[in-house]
């Protein structure tokens, strides 16, 4: 039980990764695939954020009462990495949505099976 309590974020991360992967591969609707992708990426953000945590420490802003002792602050680097990863994720979602709009205009649907059918008809 204690192993579960200490590591529960890892289980949540793995669970979210699985949901995201299922969404991307198992779902036939392109928009649902995109939502799956976002869940998948969020799981990875959580993984990094959890890696930054040190029990009993404070936010990484210089505090005159604590001073320069690095061990007393949370590790800020994963936060910075994840900020970058979030920007990348937003950009990817933006490009994906733009593609979805184009696809919808051309095929009138976001269901993969319908799109494939209409592709065959047109060729």
């Amino acid at each position, binding site marked *: 039980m204690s192993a579960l309590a200490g590591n529960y974020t890892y289980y949540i991360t793995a669970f979210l990764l699985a949901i995201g*992967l299922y969404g*991307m591969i198992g779902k036939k609707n*392109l928009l649902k*695939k*995109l939502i799956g*992708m976002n869940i*998948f*990426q969020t799981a*990875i953000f959580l*993984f*990094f954020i959890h*890696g930054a945590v040190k029990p009993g420490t404070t936010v990484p802003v210089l505090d005159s009462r604590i001073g320069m002792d690095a061990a007393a602050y949370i590790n800020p*680097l*994963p936060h910075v*990495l994840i900020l*970058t*990863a979030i920007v*990348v994720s937003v*950009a*990817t979602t933006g*490009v*994906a949505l*733009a*593609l*979805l709009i*184009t*696809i919808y205009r*051309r*095929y009138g649907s976001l269901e993969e099976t319908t*799109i494939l059918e209409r*592709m065959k008809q*047109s060729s």
Partner: protein
Amino acid sequence: MSHLPVLIPITLLLSAFLIPLAGYVKRDFAFAIASVGAFLAFAFSLAGLLMVLSQGEIRYHLGGWAPPIGIEYVLDALSAFMAAVVTLIGLVVLIYSRRSVLHEVPLRVVPLYALAMLLLAGLVGIIVTGDLFNLFVFLEISSLSAYALMAIGDDRAPVASFRYLILGSIAGSFYVLGVGFLYFSTGSLNMADVAQRLPALYQSRAVAAAAIFIFIALGLKMALFPLHLWLPDVYTYAPSAVTALIAPIMTKVSAYVLIRMLLTVFQPAYLRDLLPMTSIIGWLAAAGVLYGSVMAIAQNDFRRMLAYSSISQIGYIGIGIGLANPLGLIGALLHILNHAFMKACLFLVAGSIRFRTGRWKVSSFAGLGRKMPWTMAAFTVSALSMVGIPPAAGFFSKWYLLLGSIDAGNWFLVAVILASSLLTAVYFIRVLEQIYASHANEESAPMKASDPPPSMLLPTLLLGAGLLILGLFNSAIVTHILNIVVLPLHRPGS
């Protein structure tokens, strides 16, 4: 000139930024800026390569922050070699692209060039960076611009591009996950620093997880069988110039990252001896070589045939990485160079045929040998090179791969390489027969078709001639550049 490592990506990024501004004033500026930017980047890469060979590696600390805290850009023999290959192919294809782009997608010229430069900047960034997370950022820059580039094209292009986006995002996310495991195990993101700290952690399961995640990510990105599913559609539906830009270099850059992981970050002692990662790569690659060749034989669409042939050729590079011995890796690196030339040349030929005749079915190519003699000469040279007939360059990389397989005592791989050469011969001879021996039929191209204008023909011929030159001078490349790259494999204990 210790600034060289950073100048290469910065030049490309700057031109990507300038193109939309200048292109807004006049469309033709876009092409001019792109060519100048690519030329400068190639000049910097070449200067970097020469300096690395004479004086050893160049390290640049971004913002003056020393690693491991700061990000560093590194030009060593491997990255300088790759940067020169990527920028050279990029430059040649960009020069070619102007007429082809104006012909196929006249309304999207400015965004297309801006994205192409962004793509090149991302790829070169991946190559020169010495930081694991910085590599992810460049990976995503190149991927995002590739998704957008591929979506320009016919009606089916956005669907193919979206599928690639989903798979590419899985790859990117797996890579970050792997880097996360590495960071939380070693406390560092700098490649050299991580490499120093890893040997003490070789027994750690977190490091094994990191290696597996990064391997899957790169396998997806380089279209290693069975992670290749995104590739054929994407190569088929994108505009000719875009495919010619993406196909020769993008998958190779992922192969480069794999080699970088093997040689620098994890070290051969780990990926080859402790975790049998390289042999898994080797077996998958061998399967991919056969699968790609067989599928290529079944295609009638020329571009699709070339796409499947790419999967097979990527397999050769994978075999070389999988062997993880000096000869095998030399074969893989030489094949990265040769295949970049061959595929660029073949896709330029495909683009020229489309430009003049509007056809891409192999069955409609009858009689093109007489109508487009120079284009078809370039095609013939690259086809011979793909099959592996000396003195064309393709022979020599396969030769090193064969030597590497024999060195490893792996006779199965020897058989795969030889069998695949025969299969490659089958699908290229089929095309050559159509071009030179068949009589024009009702499907074939109009009689007035001729060689494309010089701005398209010369780059094609340049690449074709380059294949022969590379073939003749391959021993110089191997002795002066590649032998230095594979030194870590000779180290005692590895």
